[in-house]
């Protein structure tokens, strides 16, 4: 699995560049690099369905982020927070990594899991649904309730974004009505 290690190390280097650069446009491009590395990792781990979805979603995220920040702000950010918060968060992260390293040794080996839940889906997938793509048969026939929940979450998020981005807010319309009336503050 040498290719997987190389792709993961490239993703970590890209993430460090995205977090530390002062120029905002460069950090958005580095976020795109992390997303493309994730697409290649999905292809290596034999999941072609996810690779297609991750690629197009990554392109859309980059377009939305660039549209929001270009021409709206100074390009160079100022320094970080004060030193106390930085030190405290580094100590917290080191403790978290130390404990997770000790826990991850007890997982089963990479590539030899002990999960047996999906055996039923693999054996009876073709005759009960008639679809040869096993992932589609799981999300649209065996577990269609989760897809209904996901469609609801997408609908609500788009509704929320449309409500936030209206041209004239409600307050301005109300204050236009009371323009002639005197208010005491």
């Amino acid at each position, binding site marked *: 699995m040498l290719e997987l290690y190389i792709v993961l*190390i490239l993703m970590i280097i890209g993430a460090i560049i*995205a977090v530390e650069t002062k120029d905002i446009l460069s950090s958005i491009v580095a976020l795109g690099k992390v997303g493309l590395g994730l697409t290649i990792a999905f292809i290596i781990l034999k999941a*072609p369905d996810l690779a297609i979805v991750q690629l197009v979603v990554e392109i859309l995220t980059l377009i939305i982020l660039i549209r929001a920040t270009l021409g709206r702000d100074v390009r160079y950010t*100022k320094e970080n927070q004060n030193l106390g918060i*930085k030190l405290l968060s*580094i100590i917290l992260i080191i403790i978290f*990594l130390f404990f997770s390293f000790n826990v991850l040794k007890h997982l089963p080996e990479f590539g030899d899991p002990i999960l047996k839940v999906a055996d039923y889906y693999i054996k009876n997938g073709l005759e009960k649904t008639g679809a040869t793509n096993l992932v589609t048969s799981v999300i649209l026939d065996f577990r269609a309730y989760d897809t209904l929940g*996901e469609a609801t979450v997408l609908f609500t998020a788009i509704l929320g974004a449309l409500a936030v981005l209206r041209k004239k807010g409600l307050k301005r319309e109300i204050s236009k009505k009371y323009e002639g009336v005197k208010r005491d503050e």
Partner: protein
Amino acid sequence: MIYFLCFVLFSIGLYSILTKKNLIKIIIGIAIVDYSINLFFILVAYRIDGRAPILKEGEKIKRIVDPLPQAVVLTSIVIGLAVTALLVAIAIRIYEKYGTFDINEIKELKG
């Protein structure tokens, strides 16, 4: 050892959420945390010498990669996109009202 590199990616995103001043850097940190969690699910579901979970014509099944976490992660990728889009919409609104993306100045102005 591979699982540990995935958690290092998670902690880089966490560091960016906790200590950065600019609002766009916080949104980038949340996106990096999303990517690392999706990668961890697919790493657990891999079998050595497995095939992709698509059946072919006239071929017997020997060893297939687990299809159940892939169905879960497919939903999670699209939800990550929706959350990022909503955060960006709120950030644009904040800039229009206060004139800056700096979170220390947003706390002090009374608006």
